[in-house]
C-alpha cells in the first residue's frame, strides 16, 4: 500500500513538472508570419504598434504568471515530500500567523499595481486613432463582410470566403476571401464597424484588433500597419450557422499601390451590389447566401 502511494506521488510530481515546462515554452516566440503556423505557441508577429505593445505587455504578464505557478508548484512539491503522513507523523498545530497572512495579501496587491500601470497605458494607447489619415467602414453580415472607403471614392464591396472546393494550391483553407481589403502601409486608419443583422466581430490577430460589429451601433478602432503583406483573421463572435466561415483577409500595400488600386476598385465595385445573388455551397447542408 505504501509503495503504491509513493508511485502515485511520483507521477503527480512528474506530471506537474511537465506542465510547468510546457507553460514556460509559451515564452519562446514564433517565426515571422501574418497567419497562424502549425504548432504555434505564441502570438502571430505584431504588424501594428498596438499589437507590439500587447505582445510586450503579455511578455511581462507571462513572466509574473509562470513565476506564480512555479512558486505554488514548488510549495506543493515540498508539502508532498515533507508533510506526508510517513515523513511527518505528528501534525503541527499552527493555524494562525498574522504576519504571514498580511504578506500574502500585500504582495499580490503590489504585483497587481505593477501590472496595472502598463495595462492602463496600453489600454488608453489602443483606444482611438489620434490623427487618422483615412477611414475604413466595415459591416458584418451573415456570413460575409463588406467594406466601404468613404474618403477614397466611397466605393463598397463584399468579401466572401473562398469555399473549400475552390481553394487553389498554396491558398489557406478557411482564411482566403474573394475580395481582400486593401489598405496602405504606415497609414493611421480609423475603422468604423457595424452590422446589418446579428453581432459579428472583426478580428485580425497580427493587428491587435478585435471589435464587435453591433447592429444599431458604430464601433471605432484603429490600425497602423507597419509591414506590407497579407494578414488573416476570422469572425470572433458566434453569429449563426456559418460563423466559422466568414474570414477576413487584409492586403497591406505601399501608398502608391493603394492609390492605383482605389482607381481600379472604384470601377470594379461600382455596381457590385446589383449583381445576381450567388449561393455558395459549404461542405454542409447549410448554405451561405452571397451577393
Amino acid at each position, binding site marked *: 500500500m505504501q509503495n503504491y502511494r509513493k508511485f*502515485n506521488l511520483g*507521477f*503527480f510530481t512528474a506530471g*506537474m513538472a511537465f506542465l510547468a515546462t510546457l507553460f514556460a515554452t*509559451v515564452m519562446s516566440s514564433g517565426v515571422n508570419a501574418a*497567419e*497562424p*503556423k*502549425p*504548432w*504555434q*505557441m505564441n*502570438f502571430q508577429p505584431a504588424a501594428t504598434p498596438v*499589437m507590439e505593445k*500587447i505582445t510586450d*505587455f*503579455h511578455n511581462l504578464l507571462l513572466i*509574473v*504568471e509562470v513565476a506564480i*505557478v512555479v512558486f505554488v508548484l514548488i510549495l506543493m512539491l515540498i*508539502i*508532498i515530500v515533507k*508533510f*506526508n*503522513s510517513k515523513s*511527518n507523523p*505528528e*501534525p*503541527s498545530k499552527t*493555524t494562525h*500567523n498574522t504576519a504571514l497572512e498580511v504578506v*500574502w*495579501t500585500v504582495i*499580490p496587491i503590489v504585483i*497587481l499595481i505593477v501590472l496595472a500601470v502598463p*495595462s492602463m497605458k496600453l*489600454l488608453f494607447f489602443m483606444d482611438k486613432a489620434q490623427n487618422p489619415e483615412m477611414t475604413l467602414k466595415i459591416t458584418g453580415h451573415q456570413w460575409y463582410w463588406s467594406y466601404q472607403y468613404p474618403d477614397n471614392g466611397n466605393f463598397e464591396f463584399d468579401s466572401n470566403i473562398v469555399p473549400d472546393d475552390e481553394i487553389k494550391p498554396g491558398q489557406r*483553407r*478557411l482564411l482566403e476571401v474573394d475580395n481582400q481589403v486593401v489598405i496602405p502601409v504606415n497609414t493611421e486608419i480609423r475603422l468604423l464597424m457595424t452590422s446589418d*443583422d*446579428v453581432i459579428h*466581430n472583426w478580428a485580425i*490577430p497580427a493587428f491587435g484588433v*478585435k*471589435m*464587435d460589429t453591433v*447592429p444599431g*451601433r458604430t464601433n471605432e478602432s484603429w490600425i497602423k500597419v507597419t509591414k506590407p503583406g497579407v494578414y488573416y483573421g*476570422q469572425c*470572433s*463572435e*458566434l453569429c*449563426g*450557422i*456559418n*460563423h*466559422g466561415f466568414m474570414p477576413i483577409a487584409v492586403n497591406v500595400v505601399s501608398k502608391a499601390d493603394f492609390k492605383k488600386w482605389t482607381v481600379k476598385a472604384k470601377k470594379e465595385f461600382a455596381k457590385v451590389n446589383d449583381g445576381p445573388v450567388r449561393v455558395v455551397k459549404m*461542405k*454542409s447542408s*447549410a448554405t451561405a447566401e452571397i451577393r
Partner: protein
Amino acid sequence: MSDTAHDHHDHRPTGWKRWVYSTNHKDIGTMYLALAMVAAIVGAAASVVIRMELHQPGIQFITDFQFYNVLVTAHGFIMVFFVVMPALIGGFGNWFIPLMVGTPDMAFPRMNNLSFWLVAAGLVLLVIAGLIDGGPGTGWTVYPPLANADYHPGMAVDFGILALHLAGASSILGAINFITTIINMRAPGMTFHRMPLFIWAMLLTAILLLLAIPVLAGALTMLLTDRNFGTAFFSPEGGGDPILWQHLFWFFGHPEVYIMIIPAFGVISEIVSTFSKKPIFGYLGMAYAMAAIGVVGFVVWAHHMYTVGFNVETRAYFTLATMVIAVPTGVKIFSWLATMWGGSIKFDTPMLYAMGFIFLFVVGGVTGVTLANAGSDMAFHDTYFVVAHFHYVLSIAAIFAMYAGFFYWIGKMSGKQYPEGLARLQFWITFVGVNVLFFPQHFAGMAGMPRRIPDYPDAYAGWNMISSYGAYITAIGGLLFFVVLWKTLTSKETVAANQWGEGASTLEWTVASPAPFHTHEDTPKVGSQPAE
C-alpha cells in the same frame, strides 16, 4: 399520545413515494447527485462529440453547423445549470448542510422537494429545446439578435428560456432554504465564526444566487417577450439595444461563475483540513476571502464584454476591479498551502483531487489575470485561450471538487468503502486527461483560433488533435468513475462513522455511516472547533 407522536416521527415512506414526495434532505441530496450524473453523461457526450469533430481540420461528421452550435450551447447549459450546480449545491449542500450545522433537516423540507423537481423539469425542457426546430445554436450566452425570432425562428430558444426559468426558480427556492437553515438552525455553540468553511461557502453561494438569478430571470423574460410579443428590449430597430442583454446576462453570469466555484472552495477546504490533520489555516481570512470574492464578483461583469465598444474609461474601471479578485483568491490558495504545511497528510483519493483542484485553479487563475486586462484581452477575447482559461479555473476545477467531495463523503452517504486503488487510478487518468485536453488550447488561442467554430484553418490542426486525445482520456476517466461508483455501491466493505480519523472534526462524522434517515434528533453541542 406520546406513542402516536413517536410513530409519526419514524414515518418513512417507501417505494417511489419515498423519492417523488421526498422531504428528506438526504434523499433530495441523493436525487440531485443522480440528476447531475445523468446530465453529466449528456453534457460530456456533447463535448466529446465536439472534440471528435475538431480532431482534424475539415468536416468530420457534423455536416449541419447549426447542430454543432447546438452541441456547444447544450454542453454549456447542461454543465453549468444541470451538472455543477445540482451536484455541488443541490447534492452536497442538501446532504451536508443539516449534518454539519447539527439540525435534523432543512428549514423548508417541502420547498426543498419543489426545488429538486423544478430543476428536473428544467432539464427535460432543455433536452426538448435541443431536439425541436433545429435547436438553440446561440451559445450559453444567448446573445440577441442571434437569439431573436428573426434568426432563431421556431420554439427551440423559447424552450431553452423556460428551462432556465425553471432552473432559476429552483435555485432561488434552494437559496432561500439554505440561507434560512444556516442562519437559524445551527447547533448551540456554532457561532458564525465557528461554522465549517463548507457552510460558509454554501451560505455565500445562496446569497449570490438570491441576488443574481432574478436578474437573469428578468432578462430571460424580456427576451421571451421580444421573441413572442413584439417588444424590442434588445432590438435596435425598435429602440432597444443588444448590448443591454449582455449587461443583464453578465450581471448574472459573472456571479454565476462564483456560484459554481465557491461551493468547490468549501469542499476543498474541508478535505485539505481533514487529510492534513490540522484545522484550516487562517479560518477567518478564508471565510471573508470568499465573502470578498462574492461582493467583488458583482461589480466586474463587463470584463466579459471588452470588445462591445465601451468607452475606454469603462474598460479601465472593469480592468482594475477585476484584478482585485486576484487578492482574495490568492489568500485562499496560500491558506490551503499553509494548512497542508506542517500537516501529516494522507494522500487518499479525496486529497489527490483537492491538490489537483488547487493546481488547476492556480493555472486557470493566472491566465485570468491576462484576460482581466482589457488591453491584452483584445488578443485573447473569444479565442481558445479563453476556453482553456475558464475550463481550468471553473469547469474542471469544479468537476475536481465534485469528484473530491464524492470520494470524501461517499462513505457517509452510502456506508460503503470506495475502492481506493481504482479511485486513485481514476484520478490520475482524469488529471492527465484534462491537462492534455485544455493546456494546448492556450497555444491555439494565442495563435488566434476563434471559439465556437466547427472547422478551423489547417495551421491549428496540431494542438487540436492533442486536445481531442485529452478529451478521450478524460472521457475514459469519466467512465471509470461509474465503474468505481458501481463497485462502491455493491461493495461489502463498510466504513466507520468517522472513516478519516482525527482530522475530520465536523459534525457529519459524529453520526453513523451510512447516515440514518433522520439524524441529529438530539441537538449536538458545539465546543470551540472548528474555528479555534
